[in-house]
C-alpha cells in the first residue's frame, strides 16, 4: 500500500494526488498517457464506425512483431513498432477494395505475422542473452502488456509529440472521414477522395497502435480503441458528440487507471486502465438498457434518434 491509499483512507485524496505527481515517472506517465488516450479515443471511434475493429486487433499483434523484430535486430524498439504498424495499415488498405479487405485475409496474414513474432522473441531471448542478461524475456512481456511507468524523458516527449500529431490529423480530416465512413457511395459521388481517406485513416490507426503499445501494451490496444468508442456510442447517437466523448472517456480511463495502480502497487497500470474503461462500458450498458426498457414501455415512444 502506498501514500495515495493512505490519504484516500484518511479522506484527503488531494494530498495523495499531490504526492503521486511529485514522482517524475508518474508525471511522464500522465503526460504521455493523456495524449495517447485522446488520440486512441478519436481514432477508435472511427475504427468502430468503419467496422474495422478486427483490423485494430490485427494491428495490435503486428505491433508486437514489429517491436520484437527491432529488438532482435538490435535497433530502437519504436522504429520497428511504427514501421510494422504503418506498413500493415498501408498493405491492408491496398489489399481490399475501398480499403476494406475480407476478415479471412486479415486473419491469415496476422496469424502468420504473430508466428513471426514468436520467432523474433526466441531469437531475441536466446540470441542476445550474452549482452543483456535475463532482462530480455521481460522486454517481450513489456511489449505485450505495456510499461507506462518505464518511459524515459525522451520517450515521453516523442510519444507526446506523435500523439499530438495524430490528434491534429484526425481532427483535420474528421468531417470528410465521418461522411465517407457513414455513406461511402454518396461521399464518393460528392467528390470526396474516399479511398485516400481510408488509407490515410489506416496509417493514422497504425501510428496510434504504435503509440498505444507504449502505454498499455500491444495486446491491450483494443481496450483503448474499441471500448471508449462503444461507451460513447451508448451515451449519444450524434456522431461528433460521440467522437469527442470517446476521446474523453479514453483519457479518463488512463487518469483513473494510473491513480489506481499508484494507490495499489500490486495492480499493474495496464490492467487498471483496462478495468476502468471496461467498467465504464458495463455501467453505461446497464444504465442505457434500463432507460431504453423504461422508455419503450411508454406508449407512443418510437426510439431514440
Amino acid at each position, binding site marked *: 500500500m502506498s501514500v495515495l491509499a493512505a490519504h484516500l483512507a484518511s479522506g484527503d485524496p488531494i494530498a495523495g494526488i499531490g504526492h503521486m505527481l511529485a514522482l517524475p515517472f508518474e508525471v511522464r506517465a500522465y503526460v504521455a498517457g493523456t495524449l495517447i488516450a485522446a488520440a486512441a479515443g478519436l481514432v477508435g471511434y472511427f475504427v*468502430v464506425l468503419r467496422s474495422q475493429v478486427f483490423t485494430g486487433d490485427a494491428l495490435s499483434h503486428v505491433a508486437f512483431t514489429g517491436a520484437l523484430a527491432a529488438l532482435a535486430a538490435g535497433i530502437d524498439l519504436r522504429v520497428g513498432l511504427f514501421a510494422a504498424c504503418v506498413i500493415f495499415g498501408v498493405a491492408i488498405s491496398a489489399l481490399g477494395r475501398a480499403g476494406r479487405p475480407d476478415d*479471412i485475409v486479415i*486473419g491469415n496474414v496476422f496469424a502468420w505475422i504473430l*508466428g513471426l513474432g514468436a520467432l523474433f522473441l*526466441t531469437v531475441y531471448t536466446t540470441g542476445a542473452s550474452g549482452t543483456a542478461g535475463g532482462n530480455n524475456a521481460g522486454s*517481450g512481456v513489456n511489449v505485450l502488456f505495456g510499461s507506462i511507468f518505464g518511459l524515459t524523458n525522451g520517450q515521453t516527449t516523442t510519444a507526446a509529440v506523435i500523439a499530438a500529431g495524430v490528434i491534429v490529423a484526425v481532427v483535420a480530416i474528421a468531417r470528410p472521414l465521418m461522411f465517407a465512413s457513414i455513406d461511402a457511395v454518396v461521399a464518393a459521388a460528392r467528390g470526396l477522395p474516399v479511398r485516400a481517406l481510408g488509407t490515410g485513416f489506416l496509417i493514422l490507426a497504425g501510428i496510434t497502435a504504435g503509440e498505444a503499445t507504449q502505454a498499455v501494451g500491444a495486446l491491450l490496444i483494443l481496450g483503448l480503441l*474499441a*471500448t471508449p468508442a462503444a461507451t460513447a456510442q451508448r451515451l449519444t447517437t450524434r456522431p461528433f458528440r460521440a467522437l469527442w466523448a470517446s476521446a474523453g472517456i479514453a483519457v479518463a480511463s488512463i487518469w483513473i487507471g494510473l491513480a489506481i495502480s499508484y494507490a495499489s502497487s500490486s495492480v499493474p497500470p495496464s490492467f487498471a486502465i483496462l*478495468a476502468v474503461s471496461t467498467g465504464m462500458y458495463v455501467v453505461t450498458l446497464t444504465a442505457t438498457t434500463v432507460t431504453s426498457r423504461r422508455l419503450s414501455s411508454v406508449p407512443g415512444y418510437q426510439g431514440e434518434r
Partner: protein
Amino acid sequence: MTSDTGATTGASGTSLTWNVSSDISQVLSFHFMVNAVRAGTIIAVAAAVIGWFMVLRRQSFVGHTLALVAFPGASGAILLGVSATFGYFGFCIAAALLIATAPHSQGDIRFSEESAVIGTVQAFALACGFLFVSLYKGFLDGITGLLFGSFLGITDYQVITLLIVALGAVAVLAVIGRPLFFASIDPAVAAARGVPVRTLSGIFLLLLGVAAAEVSQITGALLVFALLVMPAAAAEQLTARPALSLALSVGIGLAVTWLGLGIAYFSVYPVGFFVTTFGFVFYVTAAAVRRSADRLGRRPNRSGIPVTT
C-alpha cells in the same frame, strides 16, 4: 504444464537427416513426442472442422478473441492452484456465453457495437491474464509458454481429456451441422423456414470456445487462431463444395500440425512459428492456385460465396 519456451527443444542431441523415415522414428522414440503428436492430431481435426464453420460464418474476430481468452484462463487457474485445463475450458466457454449475449447493433446501422464488445472482452481478458501473472510472482518465465505454446510435457491424462472434449464437440457439430450450414449461408431464409438461428449461433460460439481452449494448450493462446482460420481459408480457396472443402480443411490442418511439430523438434525455434508459417504457405498457395485457375477460365463461377479480390 512445463514452462519451456521451446528454446531448448533442439537439445535432445538429435539432428535432422535426409532419411525421412529415420527422422520420424527418431521423433516418435520419445514418449513426450508421441503425446505431442497425438494431441496435435486431435487438435488439428477439431480445429479444422470448427474453424471451417468459423470461416464460413465470417466470425474470425470472435474466434480470435475466444482464443486469447485461454491465456487468462490458464494463468488464473495456475494462480488459484487448479489444473490449467479447467482454466482453459472455463474461461473460453464463459467468454463464448458473454459474446453470445452481446448487444446486437441498434440505432446506427454502420456502428457495430457487437464488434466493439468483442474487442472489449478480448482486451479486458488479456489484461486480467496479465494481472494474474503479476500477482503470481515468479511465473514470468512461463508467460511466453502460455502465449506462444509448448508441446513439451503433455501428459497421457491431457491427451485423453483433449480426445473426449474434441469428440464431444465434433459430435455436437455433426448433429447441428446441416441446420447450422443453412443458417450460416442464409440466416433470413433459414429463420423463415423455422431454423432456430439465434440458438444455433449460440451453440456454435460455445463450440468455438471449446475448440479455442483445446488448441491453446499446444500452440499457446496467441497462435490458436492460426489452426482455426488457415486450413479452412485455404480449403475455401480450392473448392466450393462443402463436403470436399471440409475434408481438405482437416487434411491441411493435420499436415500443418505434423510438419510443424516435426520441424520444431529438430529446431530451437518455437512450434508456433512453424505451424503458422506452414499454414500461411498453404493459404497463399491455395489463393494463387485459385487466382490462376480463375484467370484460365477453367472454373467459370464458384458458389454464391462473395469473392473478394
